[in-house]
């Protein structure tokens, strides 16, 4: 019993369940799923479908956070990736050509990988703090995305491209399969090879990792590269879902939602242990929250207020200073230095 309570997924799943329960009472048709033209429709399906890009970005962010880093540029990469793919498709005369779609998707993915490498190099080779290093691409990336789209919204009329983000496979949205594939792949790579161990080790104690013979620099570069890749795929899903690319608004605030999802999922911003499934649940919580607020008729922008309180609550729970303050309210702090030491000793 105790082990269930202590499992890292326990609290995130509780929150998700509570959200769903709320919906069960408040808006019963939240759970209704209908079948039409070979597609499933319903709020739950929508959450999965609209949540997919966020889940992807958050998965990439999880590994970056595990190395005690952060990637602020994901939102910009989402915009760039969608813009590149849509531009390349819109230029063609036959927008439904399979080779064209594949080439465009490949181009977007390679570019996202390169942008990830750029971040990784700044962090590992140049030794710049992650939050500062990725800020550069966050600012410039928006401009690059707008440059690609020419400041316009590029629309494409390609059923094949639209399939990625809005098509159905076995009655379920295709995007769910993309997310599942990435999730399975990254789980295999991190848990079946030693990469996961190395990431956690570098995030927790870089000096000791180096002394143990781990190539910390390569670990960092690969993590940022993967984060770029995830953001790139998310950009494709997003742009294909609406069959257009918007350099201005695509992926706006994604970095913040992704970080939030990672933190809710139980991965600490100080690095170390990471929980991919926790992140997925975290992203689902955010998406469910958005959908719920939308369903009950409150202006969707209010989500921000709720998010603010979630961020604060999660961080306060993770803050040892806060817990100590609660635990020893009555104790006066005579020797601040000593407390520090006893904490280190124990």
């Amino acid at each position, binding site marked *: 019993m105790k082990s269930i309570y202590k499992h890292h997924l326990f609290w995130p799943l509780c929150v998700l369940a509570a959200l769903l329960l709320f919906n069960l009472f408040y808006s019963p048709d939240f759970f209704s799923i209908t079948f039409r033209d070979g597609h499933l429709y319903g709020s739950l399906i929508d959450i999965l479908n609209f949540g997919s890009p966020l889940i992807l970005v958050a998965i990439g962010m999880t590994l970056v956070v595990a190395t005690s880093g952060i990637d602020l540029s994901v939102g910009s990469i989402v915009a760039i990736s969608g813009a590149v793919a849509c531009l390349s498709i819109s230029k063609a005369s036959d927008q439904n050509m399979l080779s064209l779609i594949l080439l465009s998707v490949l181009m977007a993915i390679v570019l996202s990988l390169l942008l990830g490498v750029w971040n990784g190099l700044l962090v590992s080779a140049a030794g*710049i703090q992650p939050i*500062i290093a990725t800020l550069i691409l966050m*600012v410039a990336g928006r401009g690059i995305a707008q440059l690609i789209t020419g400041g316009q919204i590029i629309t494409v009329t390609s059923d094949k491209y639209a399939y990625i983000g809005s098509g159905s496979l076995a009655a379920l949205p295709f995007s769910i399969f993309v997310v599942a594939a990435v999730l399975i792949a990254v789980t295999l790579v991190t848990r079946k090879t030693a990469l996961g161990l190395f990431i956690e080790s570098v995030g927790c104690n870089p000096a000791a990792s180096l002394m143990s013979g781990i190539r910390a620099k390569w670990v960092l570069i690969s993590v940022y590269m993967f984060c770029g890749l995830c953001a790139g795929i998310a950009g494709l899903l997003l742009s294909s879902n609406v069959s257009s690319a918007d350099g201005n608004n695509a992926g706006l605030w994604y970095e913040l939602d992704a970080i939030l999802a990672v933190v809710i999922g139980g991965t600490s911003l100080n690095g170390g242990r990471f929980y991919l499934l926790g992140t997925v649940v975290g992203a689902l919580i955010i998406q469910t929250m958005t959908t719920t607020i939308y369903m009950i008729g409150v*202006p969707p922008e209010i989500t921000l207020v709720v998010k603010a309180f979630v961020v604060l609550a999660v961080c306060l729970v993770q*803050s040892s200073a806060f817990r100590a303050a609660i635990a020893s309210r009555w104790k006066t702090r005579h020797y601040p230095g000593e407390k520090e030491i006893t904490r280190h000793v124990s």
Partner: protein
Amino acid sequence: MFLKHKYVPILVTITLFLAMFAAGSFLYTGFFSLQVLMNLFVDNAFLLITAIGMSFVILSGGIDLSVGSMIALTTMVSASLVQQQGWSPAVVIPLVLLMGAVFGSGMGAMIHYFKIQPFIVTLAGMFLARGFCYVISIDTITIDNAFYTNVAQTKITLPGGSFISISAIIALAVAAAAIFIAHYTRFGRNVYALGGNEHSALLMGLPVARTKILVYTFSGFCSALAGVVFTFYMLSGYGLHAVGFELDTIAAVVIGGTLLTGGVGYVLGTFFGVLIQGVIQTIISFNGTLSSWWTKIVIGLLLFTFILFQRVLSARRSVLKQ
């Protein structure tokens, strides 16, 4: 060794500004005029005010992501109180300034007492302030109060025929005050000490808690003041005002030569950082064919150059010490 090391980044910033202004003057007729220079202040008054608050935060080793939202919230609260509730601007303006300061000090207290990263706390602050805007209203509230429109339209003519707005004067006054605070008061020096080495500052007996909380209070106040100025500029309150503005602000501070890790930099540098952003926009508008997104790309490039440049400087410093 004639040039003091610590002045190198700020001199680079000033030189860059002069070079860009000169380049604009060569390329476009009508660029080289006092009015163009004055317009830099008129159009960027709110950026200057926010960036000055942000400078203190970054100098202390922190960051404040809530500034853009705070501006939006200020416009929203002002507009709703003045326009919908009919309050007098004389009450509303001090009230929103107080609101900004209190909001900032709340974030500062959380950062200091619960040891949560400034990034996260101010991120929550950003969500919260933006969310409150929509609690007030989702739509734009246009202001037609006489005081606001008067301030917005007042042009103060300078000798030589050029003019400047009241907002620009407020911004310049804030800049002057901030330079004094940063360099001639204990609070200012404590901010530098805190950004240099928090542990040492504590052992040297400096009031770390008070300084840290005050820094965020000041930043909150500055963004609220920028919000007031922004209200003059836009004559409306809207939840989507100043979206992404925190990035412009941080960029201005970094381009101004302030080290993002804290402890090194000048308010004067931020002043020129803001002007550089203004010049880029002016050049782009004079050109007419260049699109607005080039601003972001150029600023990104400048950010990259400055961050790398500072990194090299600090690397050389640690080699020198050996």
